[in-house]
């Protein structure tokens, strides 16, 4: 199995953790793996992206334009920004939760209205309000693990490996909540 996975978010949404979990499950499935986390100026509020490449032999951690198999977008506008990196027919998992950039907040421009129409026909698109589902599970912060659960449907990796790696990487008091989020995402029963 060779997969190029892109992740995108606004700082503070748990992207680095998600990238780390993807890397670890790939390693434990016997694959080669390399990742990037591109973190800009600020911890919070800026756009950030990650990439995970897994397969038999991986050289560069970078994903070239139109080479992405799966896009996990924790924020809707950031999904649009990453579209040029996706293959035709790829899998796009998008959180509909909106975080407004300063330009939108200050009413200089609209929050891009064309995101859903741009995604249509690009491949398999799974849109959900992951933040709302995560709040129902117990905390908005588990939206990232919920979305990893959805991505797991497209990766041939045992649930046992996922569960173990999640247990080892999330705060102890939120382990059960995160496992539940993963399972709901994987089963699609959120």
């Amino acid at each position, binding site marked *: 199995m060779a997969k190029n996975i892109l992740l995108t978010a606004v700082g503070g949404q748990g992207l680095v953790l998600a990238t780390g979990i993807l890397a670890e499950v790939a390693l434990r499935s016997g694959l080669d793996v390399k990742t990037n986390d591109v973190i800009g100026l600020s911890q919070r509020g800026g756009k950030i992206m990650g990439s995970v490449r897994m397969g038999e032999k991986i050289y*560069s951690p970078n994903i070239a334009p139109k080479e992405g198999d799966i896009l996990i977008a924790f924020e809707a506008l950031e999904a649009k920004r990453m579209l040029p990196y996706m293959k035709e027919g790829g899998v796009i998992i998008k959180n509909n939760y909106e975080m407004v950039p*300063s330009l939108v907040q200050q009413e200089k421009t609209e929050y891009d209205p064309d995101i859903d129409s741009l995604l249509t026909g690009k491949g398999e698109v799974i849109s959900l309000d992951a933040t709302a589902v995560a709040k129902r599970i117990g905390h908005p912060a588990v939206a990232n693990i919920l979305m990893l659960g959805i991505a797991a449907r497209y990766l041939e990796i045992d649930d046992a490996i996922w569960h173990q790696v999640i247990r080892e990487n999330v705060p102890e008091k939120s382990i059960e909540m995160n496992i539940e989020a993963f399972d709901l995402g994987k089963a699609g029963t959120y």
Partner: protein
Amino acid sequence: MERKVITGNQAIARGFYEAGGRVAASYPGSPTVELLEAIQAYPEIYAEFSTNEKVALEVAIGGSIGGVRSLTSMKHVGVNIAMDPLMTFTQTVINGGFVLVSGDDPGMSSSQNEQDNRILGKFANMPILDPSDAQEAKDFTKLAFELSETYLRPVMLRITSRLCHSRSIVTLDEPQAPVYKPFVPDIAKYCMLPPYTYEAQHRMRDKVAELAQSAGQMEINRLEHRTDDVLIITSGLMYQNLKSVTDDISVYKLGMVYPLPIEYIRELSEKYRRIIVLEEMMPFIEDELKINRIACEGKNLFSFTGELNIEDIEMGLIEGGVIKDSKYAQLSALETTERAPLFCSGCPHRPVFDILKKSKAIVIGDIGCYSMGLIYPFEVLKTNISMGASVGMVKGMRKAMDMNGDHQPLVAVIGDGTFFHSGLSGFANLKYQMNDEENITYLVLDNSTTAMTGGQPTSSSNKMDGAGQDILIDDVLQSMGFHDIVRVDQFQYKEAAKTIGDAIKRPGIKVIITTRPCALHFKIREPHFYVDPTICIACRSCVRTNCPPLRMKQYDNIGLKSSIDPDQCVGCSICAQVCPVNAIKRFGSETQGGSNG
């Protein structure tokens, strides 16, 4: 053997541990912040965040002379701060192995410039190693200590931001037992004054030349022969990116980029029809070859700035006629609303910049989270140069303006981390050169942490964890002789605005210390606020504070009014305090907002 998937930074930390390293020092700066934090996880090692890079380098120099393997890490511009001790230490004979890790930032994802520190490594007569993934980052760290002790030189391990944060699989090894080499005083080795410096010049040159001689046989400099047509000479991540483009071209992968095995490369240049150098930023390897009269290409095909990604390398090779068919698309970006970074919800800098924006004063900036005060929508800061520069700059600007009859107030800002990093000597100067007629207002934004790099301690931040080793900024400035010093709680918006506004009008040097800690690092979370749309007059005073949860929203039957996303609000109360009609209230509270006690 245990295999783990770790970042380049973590791999260097592991390599230091496996090499038996014992003293490490750093100043936090992206992309190498996490390196020292990872070293701190090994209790055998002494690892400190020092007050600046010069001090960090000096602590590591002391570790080396004191007899243990020592490492210092810093971002590329940090090496500038440390250049003074480095340029003389490099003349000495190291005792314990010494490695300087320089985190370069091609593409400037989090830096104010793009300087290529290979130049500085050469300038300092240091061998430079350039790993291409996490495994090499670990292996090269261990090799760097061996080279350091064999050739008696400090060694530079140069790593780029991409690789610092990139994870890949690393095989862990057992740590070596550290070797303690007791300090033996030796004036010729450690005391760099003439005549001892005369010999040092020869020693530096000879050791680098010796290393260049053996570089052709080093395993980390590896020839991967394919055809006799083109040979690409490359190093670091560029090797991995190139391999993602093609495996059909001959490659000479350098693990050590200085000194180069020039004679070996000269032999190669006779075997191959063309030599192409692939490197990010400056033509460093290319220039080394050219000054040694080895014909090559490089920057005619690849950009001198920014990162060289897979598709950029492919395009350069197509332009150069090396490959014909394109596998990769060039990026055709979709026009998407820009998302600039902004102050966090509850950030203590927000009310300060809201007040300064309304003051219309000229504000001199410095380096830290508060540098974001220069971007839209605040656009308050008018300069941004380097750590601590605001303190000296404000003096020179004041002089230049006053001598031309321009007496409008000048304000400058500095954070607590930057104050201790390199602001102190500027303040000493400011006091010594003080003129009571000059109008300068200095805001020290003390948030008790080095916030931008993820919340490392500063010299004033121990007050938050009770260790009692903190230095109070007011005490320091009082001792220097500044007398117009006020502390303000910027979450008491109106009082803070009055204090700052009054100070700006007074002549002399006024220092205002803002005291609220970083909302993110100290995880400040109070019950959130909400907007009562029936009271809101849509004046946008709150929205202009640029707090992430605030947004104008269309309410049914009421119209366009302000709103607050409860998931993002941490309850700092600033929006409620700037609201002229008390439309913003704290959730679960009958009383209206107004203060956050």
